[in-house]
């Protein structure tokens, strides 16, 4: 792989791309290693939770294995354990590359990565022993949340410091999206923890704030990060330039209008809240059109084969984002939500957003940047294509079965027996995703192992080398 292929145009004093990549190595391994592990744990938990519908009798004796604990634990392991830390790793690398400098304060993200993964561990165990906060997507008990918040802020500091040292002062579209995301998460995460956990507000205001958070995390934050990463990689893969004005329009309107979604129609709250959400859904069509245009202008007509590689991942992810957003906007209309409200359909949309869009974009980015960062090829290059197929099929099975099952459930007045066949198909989808995640973990861990062995070897030769002949290299 030509390692300078992605480096920006720079002056004579610029840092070579290989040194930029090397500066990210340890922080990224710390973030990706834990993330890959949590993805497997999350999907395993989701698989066990899903088995409840196949044989509910088996889960009656142990509180840890009750569906109401497994399901949120699985969701949180995937979102907080995999999606966010892996995305932060990719953000650090993109910022270093765009800034054409080595990563600033590399020790900080290494420590922060460990704090983050410890926080996820505390959170997951907390949910399983029954300490969940009871709010969807915010189930981690207080201890876990504090660790996550601190770790995020530390990583953001390193990313912003690297950004501040950039050589080319002009910002790229990826900069806007990713900077906004670094600012977004601490705000929404501290707000919900203060308003719902530390000093809880009264009554259904809790539910409103929890919906606001879920929308800002799963729709806005995921979109900012996933699209930021896609807008960085897509022009490089396709060789065409990104239409900046459309990207800027998408950035502004997504943030301005998209944040108003999330309050379900018919919720037991004052009517102005769901009404505002409905207006938000209507206006969010604007950024979606702009994103579709950006995608079309950057990707369509490019004579580049993706061959199941990272380009395929990011193309698939961006299209999945558009599709999942359309489903999200549809649920904002009261006519449609009367049918699919409280059904698996909402779950289908969320799973499409998490796996079809975000996880796949992140995996594509990891496969693209890991060989550069480690300075050697992937140990199992064929797994990249295989994982892409497993993820596509898994997402399709999971999302289509849940969406169709959800519509049937809504039309049949929530009769459980009509849902059952669809839930069984969705278990197959989770299984395929789990297999795919094992392939990702194999690549990451074998690479880490190889790197550690090489490190050990060089250490041994350094120790064995006679002192007189040792050279000091700058």
């Amino acid at each position: 792989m030509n390692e300078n292929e992605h480096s920006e145009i720079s002056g004579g004093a610029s840092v070579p791309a290989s040194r930029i990549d090397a500066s990210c190595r340890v922080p990224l391994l710390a973030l990706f290693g834990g993330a890959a592990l949590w993805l497997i744990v999350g999907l395993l938990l989701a698989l066990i939770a899903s088995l409840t519908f196949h044989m509910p009798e088996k889960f009656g004796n142990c509180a840890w294995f009750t569906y109401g604990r497994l399901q949120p634990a699985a969701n949180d392991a995937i979102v907080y354990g995999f999606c966010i830390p892996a995305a932060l790793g990719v953000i650090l690398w993109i910022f270093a590359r765009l800034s054409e400098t080595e990563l600033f304060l590399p020790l900080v993200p290494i420590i922060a990565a460990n704090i983050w993964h410890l926080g996820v561990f505390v959170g997951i165990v907390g949910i399983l022993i029954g300490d969940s906060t009871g709010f969807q997507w915010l189930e981690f008990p207080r201890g876990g949340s504090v660790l996550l918040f601190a770790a995020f802020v530390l990583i953001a500091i390193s990313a912003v410091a690297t950004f501040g040292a950039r050589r080319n002062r002009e910002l790229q579209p990826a900069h806007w999206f990713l900077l906004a995301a670094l600012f977004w998460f601490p705000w929404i995460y501290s707000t919900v923890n203060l308003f719902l956990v530390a000093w809880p507000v009264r009554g259904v205001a809790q539910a409103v704030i929890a919906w606001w958070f879920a929308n800002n995390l799963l729709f806005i934050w995921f979109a900012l990060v996933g699209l930021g990463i896609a807008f960085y990689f897509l022009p490089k893969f396709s060789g065409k330039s990104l239409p900046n004005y459309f990207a800027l329009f998408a950035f502004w309107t997504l943030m301005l209008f998209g944040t108003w979604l999330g309050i379900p129609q018919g919720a037991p709250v004052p009517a102005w809240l769901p009404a505002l959400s409905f207006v938000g859904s209507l206006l969010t069509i604007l950024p979606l059109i702009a994103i579709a245009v950006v995608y079309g202008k950057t990707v369509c007509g490019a004579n580049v084969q993706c061959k199941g590689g990272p380009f395929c991942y990011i193309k698939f992810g961006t299209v999945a984002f558009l599709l999942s957003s359309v489903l999200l906007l549809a649920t904002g209309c009261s006519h449609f939500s009367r049918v699919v409200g409280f059904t698996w359909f909402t779950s289908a949309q969320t799973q499409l957003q998490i796996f079809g869009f975000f996880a796949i974009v992140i995996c594509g980015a990891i496969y693209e940047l890991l060989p550069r960062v480690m300075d050697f090829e992937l140990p199992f290059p064929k797994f990249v294509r295989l994982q892409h197929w497993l993820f596509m099929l898994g997402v399709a099975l999971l999302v289509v079965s849940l969406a169709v099952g959800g519509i049937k459930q809504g039309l049949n007045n929530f009769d459980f027996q009509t849902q059952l066949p669809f839930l069984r198909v969705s278990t197959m989808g989770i299984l395929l995703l789990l297999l795919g995640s094992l392939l990702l973990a194999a690549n990451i861990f074998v690479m880490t192992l190889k790197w550690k062995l090489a490190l050990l070897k060089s250490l041994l030769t350094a120790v064995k080398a006679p002192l007189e002949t040792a050279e000091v290299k700058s």
Partner: protein
Amino acid sequence: MKSGFRVFVAAFIALGASWCGFVLAPALQLGAAKQTQILNSSEIYPLQRPGNAALGLQVYRSLGCAACHTTQVQQSGFACDVVLTSAGKNPEVVSNLVSTLKLTGLTKDEADSVAGKITAAGGKSETHIIATGSDIPRWGIRRSVAEDFLWDDPVQLGSIRVGPDLANIGLRYDAAWEFAHLYDPKSRVKDSVMPPFRFLFETKNGEVIPTEDAKNLVAYLLSLRADVPLYDAPFTPPSLTK
């Protein structure tokens, strides 16, 4: 955009606006909510849940019951029935009039006009309000409103109905049924896929005894009843419509 500061300002404005709308405003409006008066009554609603039911809410949260159950009933609208209460001095005229009119399933305006005609003919009538929608009457008499959750922390609205809605489960079953159903759901609902909660029970001398958690949880479930008419969710109580 040339500076990171502008990106920061853009994000600050966008997120700040939605924060004011969906965090600050509801926290001020709903956070300051008080108990209300039950319609056509001097009693206030809601009363705090009894102590063991409040503890039961924590068991409900801890077991993640909201992963499969909602506690919110929705309604699509309401219909009015006009009921003749007295035929007055000209019973024949009134009964002839009534036989020509549609009296059930009316809108508010139609009901007012029908009531006006009956009054003009010398009769007396009452208008009964009945909530409509697919959740009604199997899961509730009226829609759930903000007041129903005034004392709850955390509020467990739920977002998916794998099982039935529980907003009024306290009206449907008694404690014995709840205990039996928690221990072995299939013994009460044939096709149930709810996992059994046998870990909430202990066996002493061959007898199955509910633990404190099970008792509190059942107390909470029995306290779930939203069956009074409110200003936001009016209806005529079934006792009056018979």
